[in-house]
């Protein structure tokens, strides 16, 4: 039932503070006249002074506590209501009867303040309504008991109860409205903050990647390339030390970088490349960044067709090297498997089963298209497009 968990500096917190000041000023305006007139013609002037002192002390304690906590606790509102009820009875009894003295009865003002407090602090709203109803009932009872037979009772009751009721409603509405606006402001601010954080993180990610690229380029990639092309002799002690150093650097990089999100088509094609390499093909490839939402049947068809194209290179081209190019331009995917092998007569009537069914047919089934160009002696190009 705690009314708020206020965040320092947030818009909700500021809304609470504004209401707290408003309630404080209301009380100040109600207590100032009786404090000035405390010696006036009460039955017991000392009792009046004592009651005023208690009310002032209670308010100082309550507002000090509320300021510390950021908002009022429900028990404060209940205690304040109870005190207001007691005042209604005691101050009423201490005030001499008759309309001429009615202004001296300051308990109706403290009741309005307590009603405002209950409307602001007590949640849910029905609970506040019950509390205020209790106060109203006390007031009504006292008014009836002290009624001047000369005055119309109903008019007096309406005047008195009206003020209390409306203060509770107005402040209750104001608090809830300001908090809602505050919450909205907080939400907007949080969204902006998170967007800024994301941008900063992306920037940082890019910097880190650039740094890693540079590191890999200068170390492991250079070393491995040197060994692969025969430029470096991997049996020599010097090169082995260099490999160990580079491996250590890669381990460091891996330790600090989280895995990027994966993409199904990219994954599938990467797996196809790995399979082709297992078959003994050397595959050079370039990949554009691919969209994440390629349908599963298209991913399967493109993957299978690419696999079949590599199969054809391995079986028929006479070379052990092929290139895979995966381009994404203008919302269209173009996959090419190119070899520099012996080629063939690319008349579609002479396509074998693999070419006709696993490549051309498979792509057509998912809304794509495949084309094969070749000429004896000048390599083969298998091109897959999706959508066609």
């Amino acid at each position, binding site marked *: 039932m705690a009314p708020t968990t206020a965040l320092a500096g947030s818009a909700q917190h500021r809304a609470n503070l504004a209401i707290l000041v408003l309630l404080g000023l209301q009380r100040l305006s109600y207590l100032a006249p009786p404090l000035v007139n405390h010696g006036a013609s009460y039955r017991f002037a000392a009792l009046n002074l004592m009651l005023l002192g208690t009310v002032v002390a209670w308010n100082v304690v309550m507002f000090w506590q509320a300021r510390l906590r950021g908002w009022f606790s429900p028990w404060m509102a209940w205690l304040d209501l109870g005190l207001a009820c007691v005042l209604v009875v005691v101050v009423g009894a201490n005030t001499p009867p008759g309309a001429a003295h009615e202004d001296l009865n300051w308990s109706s003002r403290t009741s309005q303040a307590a009603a405002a407090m209950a409307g602001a602090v007590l949640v849910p709203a029905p609970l506040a309504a019950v509390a205020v109803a209790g106060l109203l009932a006390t007031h009504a009872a006292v008014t009836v008991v002290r009624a001047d037979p000369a005055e119309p009772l109903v008019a007096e009751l309406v005047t008195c109860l009206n003020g209390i009721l409306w203060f509770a409603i107005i402040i209750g509405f104001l608090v809830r409205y300001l908090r809602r606006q505050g919450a909205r402001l907080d939400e907007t601010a949080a969204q902006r903050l998170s967007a800024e954080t994301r941008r900063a993180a992306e920037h940082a990610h890019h910097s880190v990647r650039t740094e890693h690229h540079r590191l890999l*380029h200068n170390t492991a990639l*250079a070393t491995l390339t*040197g060994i692969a092309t025969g*430029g470096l002799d991997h049996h020599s002690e010097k090169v082995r030390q260099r490999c160990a150093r580079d491996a250590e650097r890669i381990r460091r990089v891996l330790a600090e970088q989280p895995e990027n999100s994966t993409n199904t088509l990219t994954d599938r094609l990467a797996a196809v490349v790995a399979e082709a390499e297992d078959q003994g093909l050397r595959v050079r490839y370039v990949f554009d960044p691919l969209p994440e939402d390629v349908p599963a049947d298209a991913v399967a068809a493109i993957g299978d067709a690419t696999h079949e194209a590599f199969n054809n290179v391995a079986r028929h081209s006479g070379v052990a090297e092929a*290139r895979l190019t995966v381009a994404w331009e203008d919302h269209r995917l173009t996959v*090419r498997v*190119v070899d*520099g092998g012996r080629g063939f007569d690319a008349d579609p009537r002479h396509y074998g089963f693999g070419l006709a069914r696993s490549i051309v047919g498979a792509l057509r089934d998912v809304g794509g298209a495949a084309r094969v160009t070749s000429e004896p002696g*000048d*390599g083969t190009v298998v091109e897959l497009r999706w959508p066609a």
Partner: protein
Amino acid sequence: MIPVAVVDDDAMLVDGLRTWLADAADLRLVAAAPTVADLLYTDDARRVSAGVVLLDLMLRDNSDPAINVRRLVEARWRVLVVSVWSQPGEVAATFAAGARGYLTKDRGLPALGEAIRHVAAGETVYSPELAYALLRDPRPAGPHLSPQERAVLLAYASGMTLASTARHLGIRLDTANTYLKRVKAKYQQIGRPAHTKLDLANRVREDGLARDRVREDSLARRTGS
């Protein structure tokens, strides 16, 4: 004999290259240096004319690759950029700065020798990696390429030869060649710095020549299509 120089800070790779070049009859390694500045200060390099320099894209002195290319071109070197790995924008910038080609180091030494010979003969080496870099050049300063030029670049990026490119795209061989030349002209257009009035005058004259060339190209395209 083609004089060859290497700018690479990987001493072991330079050693490997030196060993291999020693066996190539028509290639001679005249100088090797870890940075462009070092190369340009060596006497051996200064005596060379019409040489080919193999320039590593990413040097450890963090020098700008395009500026490296420009300095070497101004010193009358023909530049072949090599790297184990690269970003498309970096490669495109070196091409705009006047590099004659780009190769990845994993291409093997015979392919490298072949590329050096082409560059020495004044040709441009359109490797698949260079074509891909030009196609994916993310820099806003990059030239606008026509759909036909992009199609030829994509074919080259896929590893296709000029002949298979022409066959695949259904165009004539010389038309495909013309598109490549036009890509190069567009890149060199943006790469040329205009420092002085004399440069500006040269630029204007070249632009006039470029217009003539485009007219030839459109003629070639009409006959090709």
